């Protein structure tokens, strides 16, 4: 099971990085989403995978009487998913706004903050 998850994490990371290397910002964002899911799965895997019961303590006992699953990674992933969702929603809104304002999604064409020198060959024609 660990091996399968490790493979999934690897595939997600590879695909994510490939997408993020694209000049198109939307592809970059999709790559980032895949990468953030890979990170979440990595937390999950790092917390040890067992076929144990849910982490519930029976009534009257102070500790669970049978081996239970580790609830901490799941709590961490939950936090990470919520934060990641917020950040990605913000990024999507930013990219949409930038597209409307700048008229392009090509990261190389966005040179307002760091304009090219006039003497060099520009990329204006593209």
């Amino acid at each position, binding site marked *: 099971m660990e091996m399968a998850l490790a493979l999934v994490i690897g595939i997600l990371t590879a695909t994510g990085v490939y997408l*993020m290397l694209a000049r198109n*910002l939307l592809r*970059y964002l999709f790559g*980032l989403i895949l*990468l*953030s899911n*890979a*990170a*979440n799965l*990595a*937390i999950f*895997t*790092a*917390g*040890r995978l067992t076929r144990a019961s849910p982490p519930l303590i029976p009534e009257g006992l102070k500790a669970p009487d049978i081996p239970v699953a580790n609830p*901490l*990674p799941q709590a*961490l992933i939950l*936090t*990470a998913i919520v*934060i990641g969702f*917020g*950040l990605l929603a*913000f*990024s999507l809104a*930013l*990219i949409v*706004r*930038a597209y409307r*304002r*700048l008229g392009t999604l090509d*990261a190389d064409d*966005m*040179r*307002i*903050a*760091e304009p090219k020198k006039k003497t060099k060959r520009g990329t204006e024609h593209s």
Partner: protein
Amino acid sequence: MSWLLALPFLLPILAALLTFLTRGKPCLARTLSVASCGLLLLTTLSIFALVETNGILAAQMGGWPAPFGITLVADRLSAVMLLVAAVVGLTVALFALSDIDAHHEQLGFYSYYQLLLAGVCGSFVTGDLFNLYVWFEVMLIASFALLVLGGERIQLDGGIKYVAMNLVSTLLMLTAIALLYGLTGTLNMAQLHLAVAGIDNPLAENLLAVLFICAFGIKAAIFPLFFWLPASYHAPPVAVTAVFAGLLTKVGVYALIRTFTLIFPAGDNLAHDILLAAALLTMFTGVLGAAAHYEFRKILAFHIVSQIGFLVLGLALYSPLALAGAVFYMVHNIVAKTNLFLISGTAQRLTGSFELAQIGGLYRASPLLAALFFIAAFSLAGFPPLSGFWAKFLLVKASLDQAAYWVAAVALVTGALTLFSMSKIWAEAFWKDHPQNACTGLATLTSADRIQRLSPVVALALITLVLGLVPQPFIEFSMAAADQLLDTGDYLEAVLTPPTN
């Protein structure tokens, strides 16, 4: 008294809520923003005093003992960082009163500003790695919003680069935290110190160390991960850039120092070698960028990068003197850097531009501003007897003590180049006459503007002067802070001993 530790982030969060609700009434929101920053300064002062008298302060949130609950800790490094953050918070909040226009206020500038402070302060007090991640995110989302607030074209362009790079950094940090948790089974930093020492797996340790260096390095803007900083820092209003320059990159450095003294202490040679190489390259490439540019804020932005190199150098050399130098440098740099950006904003208001070619005559227009710039700029360049001289002196002496002569040489050359680029600003913006063909002439400030813009600058310049003219107590404090960082016994005891009451 340990409940005090929760106030540095609770206060700004509360203020963020209140300023959001009152954003329709600018007068009230402005008062709330400044008042909250004032209270924050008082809180951090009392935390600082407590840490000085009682030693390391730790609080367990919700009463759960250390490895299980959320721990807040303040040692000398955290306490002084909190204090400086609060000073910068208050001065920039005052400056923002005249710098931020009604449109930005309407969009909720003050709320985001307070949230940013909450994220910064939270990162300084947390004793838990995952919590550090959460505070980083709070800080990041607030900084994203501040950067693009108003939505001008240049802001959107700079913002996209900033957001893109920083999201990668958070993912790397999350992955590093996941792997470290898998290796040790804990996320409490004090517990991690013990757990990592027990691991006999140098490969895994080095891998994690490199992941953490990359994650925090992007945030701290070290070589070769700094390019997002000069691409974005000149886009937003000056008050925003000033607080970014003063605090955000320093949070990355703080996280690096915390990680590589507490979790991965010196035994890990690979990490410190990488840090040393990165520090030297950061110092040098940053200042070369500053020497090449002719825009006020771009020069200053490249200087941030260069100065981060000095801070990381203190960590990489890893001797008591070097760490003390890093602590002193951090305090000096936050104050001087924020001040320089505030001065650049006032210069822009007076002359109408940040381009050095299109401005000038500031010395004649405002000798006071020129004097204040002189103090901040020459302190940054390491001119005796200003504060930057002592900071550099400590670091250079530490490298000479370790017989790392070429490290000292790079530091000195960087200092000389910093002086060169500062004198470029001085000659162009202050000394030469205002160009005749420029479309805008010199403006004058209204008296309210004058108070709101110049009093923060004067206050920060005074701190720089005091740090420089009476360095002894501050150097002693930095030495004590460095000892606390290297000797982790007190930290472990404060965090892991269950409370007695």
